[in-house]
């Protein structure tokens, strides 16, 4: 997914650059009925587009075209605005004369025509456009999915001034209680920046981490929930459970969400339903089944999908691509200020991946030296080297080391000291011609 998103981004950027450089570039759009429209960038067009099942006619000047969307400058709600339209939503498109467009513009808002042109012609707008920082957060919480990267990206964003947008791209099935630290780190970052979660998968501890964000967006396939805490084969009970219900409930409330949602995600007997005012859209939550829409009964755990989260207002919107998300974030277009977040995440993931392969390998190597094969001096020397490698993993990747290495750093140090002594004794014995 990551590389797809990156590819899409590259395409978008390339598309933007190409658009800026090549005014009048040929564009071809295929419609659902198989017909094609051919025209050029800067053509004036009339489009019929489907918006939530309703056909809308829209006129404007095409300023950009990419693989999946076109960008049109046109009149919207009395103002000249730039609109991104997905090709899949276009029902019909035709080229119109610029005069027709000008007439329309002048008849609706004569004094805005020039500003519309200015907007369309300003190809260097991207230089100062608002953008985002993206931090992919995937893998096991507490292993790959950590608070350190959140802290680092927030500090990096600080360099650009307060109020930056940080998108946490979450794809995790959960993990350990590191979530509490992650939650606290996000809360801290939120004091300076707008931190939003974009959910592909956020289950268990990952869901709990996401709750720190005021804005939560889902991908169509996004899921979030199942926050039951457990150890071994037993779920949290008694005081532990009550404490977790209270904490998670507080986190929910912190994001202006009902604590009942957290409860239904933690303990199966906790129920959840809601009513939605058809006029205002206001949602009232119930911790029983009395609401019109039931999300969780007394035997189920709650996991939101994109539509269930959107309907009740838990999700702030559904976005499958960066362009979709840019729209929801009210950005003119998707623009990543830099790829620092992606880089630090990739670097850390690479370290974890190496640790997960190299630690078992090193332990296995140790085991065959223990079997006593080969020259004992060589074997002891090799063992010392292997223990040193394990000790290094405690520094380089403590999360994985803790899980996979059966000894602490101190214990390793002591073992190394023993081996050195053994080695020295052997060498001494050999020099002295003694037996060992």
């Amino acid at each position, binding site marked *: 997914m990551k590389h797809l998103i990156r590819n899409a981004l590259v395409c978008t950027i390339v598309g933007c650059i190409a658009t800026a450089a090549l005014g009048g570039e040929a564009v071809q759009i295929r419609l659902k009925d198989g017909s094609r429209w051919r025209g050029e960038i800067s053509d004036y067009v009339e489009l019929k587009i489907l918006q939530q099942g309703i056909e809308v006619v829209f006129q404007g000047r095409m300023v950009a075209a990419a693989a999946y969307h076109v960008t049109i400058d046109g009149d919207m709600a009395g103002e000249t605005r730039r609109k991104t339209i997905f090709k899949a939503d276009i029902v019909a498109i035709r080229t119109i004369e610029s005069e027709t467009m000008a007439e329309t513009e002048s008849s609706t808002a004569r004094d805005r025509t020039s500003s519309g042109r200015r907007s369309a012609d300003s190809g260097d707008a991207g230089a100062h456009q608002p953008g985002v920082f993206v931090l992919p957060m995937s893998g096991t919480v507490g292993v790959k999915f950590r608070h350190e990267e959140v802290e680092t990206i927030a500090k990096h964003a600080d360099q650009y001034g307060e109020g930056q947008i940080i998108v946490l791209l979450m794809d995790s099935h959960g993990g350990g209680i590191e979530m509490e630290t992650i939650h606290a780190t996000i809360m801290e970052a939120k004091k300076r920046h707008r931190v939003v979660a974009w959910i592909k998968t956020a289950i*268990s501890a990952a869901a709990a981490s996401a709750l720190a964000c005021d804005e939560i967006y889902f991908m169509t396939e996004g899921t979030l929930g199942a926050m039951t805490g457990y150890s071994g084969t037993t779920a949290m009970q008694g005081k532990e459970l009550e404490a977790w219900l209270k904490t998670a409930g507080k986190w929910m409330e912190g994001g202006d969400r009902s604590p009942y949602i957290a409860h239904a995600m933690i303990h199966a007997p906790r129920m959840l339903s809601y009513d939605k005012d058809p006029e205002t859209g206001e949602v009232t939550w119930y911790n029983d089944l009395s609401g019109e829409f039931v999300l969780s009964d007394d035997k189920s755990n709650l996991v939101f999908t994109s539509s269930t989260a959107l309907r009740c207002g838990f999700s702030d919107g559904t976005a499958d691509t960066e362009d979709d998300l840019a729209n929801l974030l009210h950005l003119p277009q998707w623009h990543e200020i830099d790829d620092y977040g992606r880089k630090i995440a990739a670097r850390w993931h690479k370290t974890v991946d190496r640790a997960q392969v190299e630690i078992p390998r090193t332990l296995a190597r140790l085991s065959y030296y223990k079997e006593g094969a080969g020259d004992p001096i060589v074997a002891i020397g090799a063992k010392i080297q292997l223990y040193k490698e394990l000790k290094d993993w405690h520094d380089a990747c403590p999360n994985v080391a803790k899980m996979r290495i059966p000894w602490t750093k101190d214990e390793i140090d002591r073992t190394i000291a023993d081996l050195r002594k053994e080695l020295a004794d052997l060498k001494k014995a050999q020099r002295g011609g003694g037996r060992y």
Partner: protein
Amino acid sequence: MKSPPAAWLRIAFVAVVVALLAPSSGLARDDGDVSTEDILHMVDGRELHGRILTETKTQIVFEIIDLKLHMKSRRTFRLDEIAHIERGVVVDDKAQDEALSSKKKNDPATTSERTSFGRARPAGDAPNLPGLYLIPMKGQMGTDIHPSIYEKVAEDIRLHDPDVIIIKLDSKDYEDSFAAALGDVDLAELSRPDFDEYKDLVNIFRDDLRDIRQVMWVQDSIGISSTVALAWDELYMTPSARLGGMRAVFALTGADQWSDDDIRAKMMAAWMGSAKSLLEYGGYGLELADAMVDPTYKLSASFKGREVVWSLNDLGEFLVDDDDENTVDFSAKAAEDLAISDGTVETLDDLAFLLGYREYRVIEGKGEQLVENYTEQWRRSFENSKKWLQDYFQHQRWATGDETLKWLGRAKRDLENIIKAMERYKAVEIRWRTDLGKTKLEMEIEVEKIKEQIRALKQQDRGRGGGGRGMGRGGTGRR
């Protein structure tokens, strides 16, 4: 796509045409509605002739009657797809007769015209016809059907820029047979419950290629493939196709095996969420996933016009499943009746017709070949790797005495071959893990152990004064 031999194609076409002509020749006249028709003017410019069967505030069920082709088909249209409707328009009898006569002229039974471009002969150059790109999704979910190969297919799709992608899904955990009912199921060939990979697979099409119209054409789907199928809103089935068979999902994931009620609820909700997330793409009721995956649910349907409202109980107007020990499966007919499927079609011509293409061309992309080659190659590689394992055991046994080094070397090579196969095909690695309980890392460690044995033996040889092989050295063999 491979073309069937011309003779067979002709015979098949004649059979279809004969079958179609027989009931249809009196269709318009015998229905008592001969002289009028309804015309739908679609927003995309199409003009469809036929009859409105039912109508709600949001949808119209319309029987399209094509006089030229003497075909009729039923389609459901949203009102926002229709620009305007003409009702009770008088049909010109002369035009009907002309159409009939034109149809006879074009009939391949009497002419030898090429008919592989759809129901009607192409009027212009073939490249201008709508291009259909067919992709097979066939075999085991998680190995044969794996995102790695469809990423390559997606590249080829982009290259050919088709008008429609048609995915032919044929994946079944078990056959529709008496033997299967008695439990004759190959457990190794069951769907792999890796929803993350299926999300990636769906992303390739539904996100990355979303500007291209896509159709899921289910040939048969028993297992997790059914949730994948439901990621497409345009879904058609062949008459013999099944959709369902997901009873094993919880067993495969182990979600329902937890004894603690809370953990079990958590795990089941998490897995169910993954299954439902795929249905979100297709816009189907999420209750369908509940009933298709969790045997404890019942399922009934109520109808608001053509819209189906699902209930996980037996209180709906139409009871789909009142068994709380089995999951819900759908036949092609049931799926169509319950508006899960948009239609039941046997042939590509029929499907294209229902999609609104009387004429079309099949794009000769690499997709089909890529998928076929991949499946054939990884499976061959997997079979080879199992032989290499046997070779490894044998060579290890032979690694004694003077030939220890020689056979240890061979044994090492056997394992390295297996590792290479795993690296080349993710499917091989998956099947080694699930069928044989061995991971790539374990194999790599095993190779290292052998290397260390070889190193130690060589060192031992050197320590003995570099004596040549076969000099009476004994007892140095391992195992």
